[in-house]
């Protein structure tokens, strides 16, 4: 840009510059200085698409609210009877997590559609940072899950949910579902890049159902049969709920947070290489 000649040249003819140096950008396309603004632009693109899609809005805002109210009506009294504390401190995190995890389907299917229509291939041939596409997806997922968490928190507040551990704990609380939710989104996206379109929603629903039904947010741990309790106690959704209960009501914080982080990092570690390969393959199709 800065090298343009002061002499006015005809538009039809490219200016002569020896050695083709005019084509060399000052900042290399894979430099981190390119990455940050590009990721922001792409993230805003995804978020803007979601905010204009009624289905995504219903899934993100209406469904969690209705689900939380239904859970509270059905199980509220019973859980209070058997555990002595309000079920909301497990249900609010559970609903936020379920909303975040089912929403991963929307992201995965839209990546598949962008592959079909050739948008990913188009991104591949412009001077863009190679990590930009994937990172913006993950960032958009994180923002979506935080928004869902805040919506669910609002509904929970109306039903009687309160923070007892202060402002800092409340802020940390709002980001806990995103921690595991983004890792699961990466896993769903990996599945989407390597399978047929009909399989992804159903398989994700099954995984979400398993994680939801067999978690301490659905009913208290001692309600499960003995042989199932180890799974219920150590699966990631239970750890996240335990950490969020510690951050809102009371209970241990450090240990469940640590295990949530370990689960998320583990899922990322398993998915990272296939995800990068699959995304690259999808970008170079067609």
């Amino acid at each position, binding site marked *: 840009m800065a090298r343009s000649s002061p002499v006015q040249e005809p538009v039809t003819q490219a200016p002569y510059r020896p050695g083709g140096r005019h084509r060399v950008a000052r900042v290399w396309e894979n430099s981190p200085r390119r990455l940050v603004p590009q990721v922001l632009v792409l993230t805003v693109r995804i978020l803007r698409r979601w905010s204009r899609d009624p289905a995504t809005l219903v899934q993100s805002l209406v469904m969690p609210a209705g689900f939380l109210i239904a859970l509270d009506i059905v199980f509220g009294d*019973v859980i209070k009877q058997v555990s002595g504390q309000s079920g909301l401190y497990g249900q609010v995190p559970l609903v936020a997590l379920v909303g975040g995890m089912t929403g991963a389907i929307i992201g995965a299917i839209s990546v598949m559609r962008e592959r079909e229509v050739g948008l990913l291939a188009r991104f591949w041939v412009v001077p863009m940072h190679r990590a930009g596409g994937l990172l913006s997806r993950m960032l958009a997922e994180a923002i979506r899950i935080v928004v869902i968490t805040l919506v669910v928190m609002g509904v929970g507040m109306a039903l009687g949910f309160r923070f007892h551990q202060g402002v800092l704990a409340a802020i940390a609380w709002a980001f806990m579902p995103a921690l595991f939710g983004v890792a699961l989104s990466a896993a769903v996206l990996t599945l989407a890049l390597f399978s047929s379109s009909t*399989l992804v929603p*159903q398989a994700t629903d099954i995984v979400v159902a398993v994680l939801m039904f*067999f978690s301490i947010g659905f009913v208290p741990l001692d309600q499960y049969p003995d042989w199932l309790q180890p799974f219920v106690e150590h699966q990631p959704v239970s750890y996240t709920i335990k950490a969020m209960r510690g951050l809102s009501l009371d209970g241990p914080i450090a240990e469940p947070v640590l295990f949530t982080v370990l689960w998320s990092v583990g899922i990322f570690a398993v998915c990272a290489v296939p995800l990068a390969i699959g995304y690259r393959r999808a970008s170079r199709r067609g």
Partner: protein
Amino acid sequence: MTGSLQATRSAVPAAARPRVNPIQQWWVLTVRMIIPTLRNGELATQIIGSMVFTVGYYLPLKEMMGQVQPLSSYAQYLTPLIILQAIWFAAVSAAFRAATDSVQGINRRFRAMPIPAIMPLASRLTASMYRCCIALVVSVGCGHVIGFRFHGSVLHILGFAGLVLLIGATLAVIGDLIGIASQNPEATAPMMLVPQLTLGLASVGLQPVDRFPDWIQGFVRNQPLSQWVYALQALAGDTTDAAPKVTWAVMTPSLIWAIGAGALAVVLHRIVSRRRR
């Protein structure tokens, strides 16, 4: 005038309209929907999904809810709801297929071909009934494992299966309608799951109606899922006398919900697909 018309006619290659056999068309289009489910894992996920939902409701809730329900075992009480959830999932994939077909333009292609207008819908519904049958068989099998038994006569068992398939057909039409109307495959699953989860939780399928707060009992008792659960519990019977009886008073509301919702969905479906033309 006549001359120019003649010229146009000769310019367009003309042929006799091919003889078509609607039955064969229906069969071809149905097989087109069914064969991929065997290959792409859809059938497997449906079977696994039914199992997951069976144990997912049964194991955590057995202790808590088992004491407050009236029947001989919680499995006997819960299985109708599990079956309804399974056929609802079948309807979700019906909606997904309808939306995919709509987006990919194959419905427009069909309209340009000598196929009766009803045929694509009919074949999609047949494929949905195939999914419903699988859901019914798998979830009754899962129910049998946890302790669900039929105590009524053969006629009642047939009525049970018939009612489940009728509800399945209604849900399939509704799913197809949502798929056609939204034309957005991503949207279908969330839009179908909202009512599934909320109606499923707030129904008499998990716990009796008197366990709910007073202000919502009217809704819980009369909403379609609860009425279907009552009818299915009656048709399945029980060793105790606590199950609802097979009377017209129990059966009529469930039939009205199923047939009424199905008829309304068919009418809306016709309006939507006519507008698309």
